[in-house]
C-alpha cells in the first residue's frame, strides 16, 4: 500500500491485456443470472434481445424458428454475396463470363454462388412462412400493427432483392425473366392503351423506364439492378430488420396470451395478474425501464415465467443459424445454381418464366397484365397491411387460429381457396375466356372481367360471408388470408409446373414439344 494510486506507464502496459478485455467485455463470467443479463444488456448485438425471455417464447411451437431462420439466411446471403462481389463484374460484356469463372475456377466460388442462390430462394419461402405463422398466431394485433407493416416491407424488400439478383448472371434465364418482370411493372400501359391515352399519360412506361434505364433490358438495367441488389436494398433491409427486431422488444416480446399457460397449469395463476408482483421480483438491473410508466416495454410482466436469454435463447438462435447453414451448404453441394446460355435478345426463351415466386403473378398476368401485375398484387398487399387495423378484436395473441373455430374456418377457406384458384385456371384452359367467345371484345372488358379479378372477388365475398356468419373480424381475416395463401400456392404451382412453351397448359414437363 506504499503508493496505491500511483500507476505508471509500465504498470499500465503490463495490465494492458486485462484492461483491454475489460473494455471489451464489461461484465464478469456469465455464471449468474445477473451476469448473464448484463452480458446481453451491455452488448450491442445481444441487447436486441431482452435480458430475460419468457419460457413460452422458447418453445418451438411458438415461432417454429421461422424468424431466426429468415435472419440466418439473410446473414448467409450477405456473407456469400459480399464474397461473390469480389469476382462478379457487372457489365454486359463481362457479367456472364465472370459468373462462369466463379462457377469453374474461383476457389470455392461454385459453392458460394450455389449457397447464395439457394439461401435466397429459401429466404422467400421462410419470409412467407414466417408471415403466415405471425398471422395465424394473431401476433399482428395491437400493439404490434407497426411490426406487421414492417414485416410486409421486409417481404417486399426480400422479393425485390431476389428479383434484382436474378438478372445479374446475365444468362437467358435472367434476361427473359427480368424482361417479363419489367413488363409486369409497365403493365399500367395496358389500361392506358385501352383508353387510348398512352400518348399523353403513360405511368406504365414511366415505371418501366425508371426500372430499366432504357427501353429494354440492357447494360443500363444491369447496373441499376446491381446497385439496388448490392447496396440500396441490403441497406434498406438491414434498417428495416433493425426496427423490426427493436419493435419485437418494445411490443413486449413475442405475442402470448396474458395469463400464460405454464407448466403450473392453466389458470393456476389469477388471471390478469403476474405470478410475482413487481415489488417481489428479484433484484434485477432494469435500469431506466423501471421508471417508464407504460406497458411498454413489457419485459417485467410475470418475471417468474422468464429465464435469462443468455444462454437459453442464444443457444437456440445459434442452433438455428448453424442448421440453416448446413441446409444451404448441402443444397449447394448437391444442386448447382442454374446458368443457361449468355443472354441473347434475339433468341427468346420459350417459355420465358419469371422467378418462381412471381409465377403466380405471371399466371394472373396471362389473363391481364394490368390486373394481374398491378391491381391484384396491389390489393393483396394493401389488404395485408390493413389486417391489423381492421381486425381489432381483443383476443389472446399467440394462440394459433385463435381456437378451434378459427381452425375450422381456416380449413374451409383453404378448400375454398384451392378450389376457386383451380377453377380460375381450369376454366380458361378448357373453355377459353372472353376473347375466345367474343373475338372483337373491347380490351377494357378483358381487363375488368378475367379469371384473376373474379378469383379476387370470390375471395373477398367469401371473407365477407365469414364475417356475416361469425360476426368476427378475426375469422374474416383468417378466411381471406388463407384464401390468398391458397391461391398463391395453386397459381405458383400452375405457373411453374404446368405451363409450357407459349404459356400453354401441360400436365408435365415431359409433354413439352421439343424445340
Amino acid at each position, binding site marked *: 500500500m506504499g503508493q496505491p494510486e500511483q500507476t505508471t506507464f509500465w504498470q499500465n502496459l503490463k495490465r494492458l491485456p486485462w484492461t483491454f478485455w475489460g473494455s471489451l467485455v464489461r461484465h464478469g463470467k456469465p*455464471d449468474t443470472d445477473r451476469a448473464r443479463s448484463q452480458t446481453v444488456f451491455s452488448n450491442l448485438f445481444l441487447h436486441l434481445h431482452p435480458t430475460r425471455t419468457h419460457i413460452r417464447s422458447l418453445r418451438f411451437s411458438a415461432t417454429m424458428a421461422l424468424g431466426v431462420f429468415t435472419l440466418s439466411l439473410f446473414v448467409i446471403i450477405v456473407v456469400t454475396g459480399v464474397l461473390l462481389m469480389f469476382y462478379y463484374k457487372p457489365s454486359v460484356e463481362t457479367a456472364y463470363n465472370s459468373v462462369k469463372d466463379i462457377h469453374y475456377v474461383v*476457389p470455392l466460388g461454385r459453392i458460394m454462388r450455389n449457397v447464395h442462390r439457394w439461401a435466397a430462394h429459401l429466404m422467400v419461402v421462410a419470409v412467407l412462412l414466417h408471415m403466415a405463422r405471425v398471422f395465424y398466431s394473431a401476433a399482428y394485433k395491437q400493439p404490434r400493427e407497426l411490426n406487421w407493416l414492417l414485416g410486409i416491407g421486409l417481404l417486399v424488400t426480400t422479393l425485390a432483392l431476389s428479383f434484382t439478383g436474378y438478372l445479374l448472371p446475365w444468362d437467358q434465364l435472367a434476361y427473359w425473366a427480368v424482361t417479363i418482370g419489367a413488363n409486369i411493372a409497365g403493365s399500367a400501359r395496358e389500361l392506358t392503351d385501352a383508353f387510348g391515352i398512352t400518348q399523353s399519360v403513360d405511368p406504365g412506361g414511366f415505371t418501366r423506364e425508371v426500372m430499366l434505364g432504357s427501353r429494354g433490358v440492357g447494360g443500363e438495367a444491369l447496373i441499376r439492378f446491381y446497385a439496388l441488389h448490392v447496396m440500396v436494398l441490403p441497406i434498406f433491409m438491414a434498417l428495416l430488420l433493425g426496427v423490426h427486431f427493436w419493435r419485437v422488444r418494445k411490443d413486449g416480446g413475442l405475442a402470448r396470451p396474458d395469463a400464460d399457460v405454464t407448466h403450473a397449469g392453466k389458470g393456476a395463476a389469477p388471471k390478469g395478474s403476474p405470478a410475482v408482483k413487481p415489488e417481489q421480483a428479484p433484484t434485477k438491473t432494469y435500469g431506466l425501464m423501471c421508471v417508464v410508466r407504460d406497458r411498454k416495454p413489457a419485459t417485467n410482466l410475470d418475471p417468474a415465467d422468464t429465464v435469462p436469454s443468455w444462454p437459453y435463447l442464444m443457444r437456440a438462435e445459434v442452433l438455428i443459424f448453424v442448421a440453416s447453414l448446413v441446409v444451404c451448404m448441402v443444397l449447394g453441394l448437391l444442386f448447382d445454381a442454374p446458368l443457361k446460355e449468355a443472354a441473347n435478345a434475339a433468341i427468346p426463351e420459350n417459355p420465358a418464366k419469371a422467378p418462381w415466386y412471381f409465377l403466380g403473378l405471371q399466371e394472373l398476368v396471362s389473363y391481364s397484365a394490368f390486373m394481374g401485375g398491378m391491381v391484384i398484387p396491389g390489393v393483396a398487399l394493401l389488404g395485408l397491411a390493413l389486417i391489423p387495423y381492421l381486425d381489432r378484436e381483443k383476443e389472446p395473441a399467440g394462440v394459433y387460429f385463435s381456437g378451434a373455430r378459427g381452425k375450422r374456418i381456416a380449413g374451409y377457406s383453404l378448400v375454398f381457396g384451392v378450389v376457386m384458384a383451380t377453377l380460375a385456371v381450369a376454366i380458361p384452359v378448357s373453355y377459353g375466356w372472353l376473347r375466345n367467345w367474343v373475338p372483337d371484345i373491347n380490351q377494357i372488358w378483358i381487363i375488368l372481367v378475367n379469371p384473376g379479378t373474379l378469383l379476387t372477388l370470390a375471395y373477398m365475398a367469401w371473407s365477407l360471408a365469414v364475417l356475416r356468419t361469425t360476426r368476427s373480424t378475426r375469422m374474416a381475416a383468417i378466411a381471406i388470408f388463407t384464401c390468398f395463401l391458397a391461391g398463391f400456392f395453386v397459381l405458383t404451382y400452375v405457373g411453374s409446373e404446368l405451363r409450357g412453351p407459349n404459356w400453354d397448359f401441360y400436365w408435365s414437363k415431359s409433354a413439352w414439344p421439343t424445340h
Partner: protein
Amino acid sequence: MSERLKPDPVPRRSFLSIAGLGTLALAGVGALAGMVRLLKPYVYPEPMARFRLGRPDEFPPGTVKVVPERSIYVISEPEGVAVISLVCTHLGCIVAPADKGFDCPCHGSRFDPKGRVLRGPAPRALLWLEVSQAADGSLMVDANREVKPNTWYRG
C-alpha cells in the same frame, strides 16, 4: 432478504457445452479459411505467365530484342539466352531501353544493359527470368520465376 435474491447456482460448463463450442469454433475457423481461400484466385484473367518465346534458332548469339507486350528484353550471347524483365524493381514502372541500359520514367532509376542498378531509388537489379524449353524444343519464359543474374540458358 429472501433466498431468491441470491444468484442462481449455475452448473459448471458441461462436456456438452464445451463440445458444442468446440465444433462451432472449428467450423468458424473453417468458414473463415474458406473465405480467405476464395480471395486468392487459382488463375488470373490474363495470358499465362509462362509463354513461348520462339524456336531457339530465332535467337542466334548477338540478338537483342524487346518484346513490349510481355515487357521483357531478350539477349542472346555465346553463353546462351537470357530474358530480363523490364519491370522496374522500385515501384513497377516499365523501364525504357536507353543508349546504354534502361531508364525508368517514374523515379529516375537507371540500369545497365545487364539490369544492374546504376542510380536512382531501385533497390535491386532488374529481374532475370527463367528460360526453359518445352517438349517440342521451343524456348519458354516464365515471368513468375526469377533466376540469378547472369544465368544463361543453353538448350
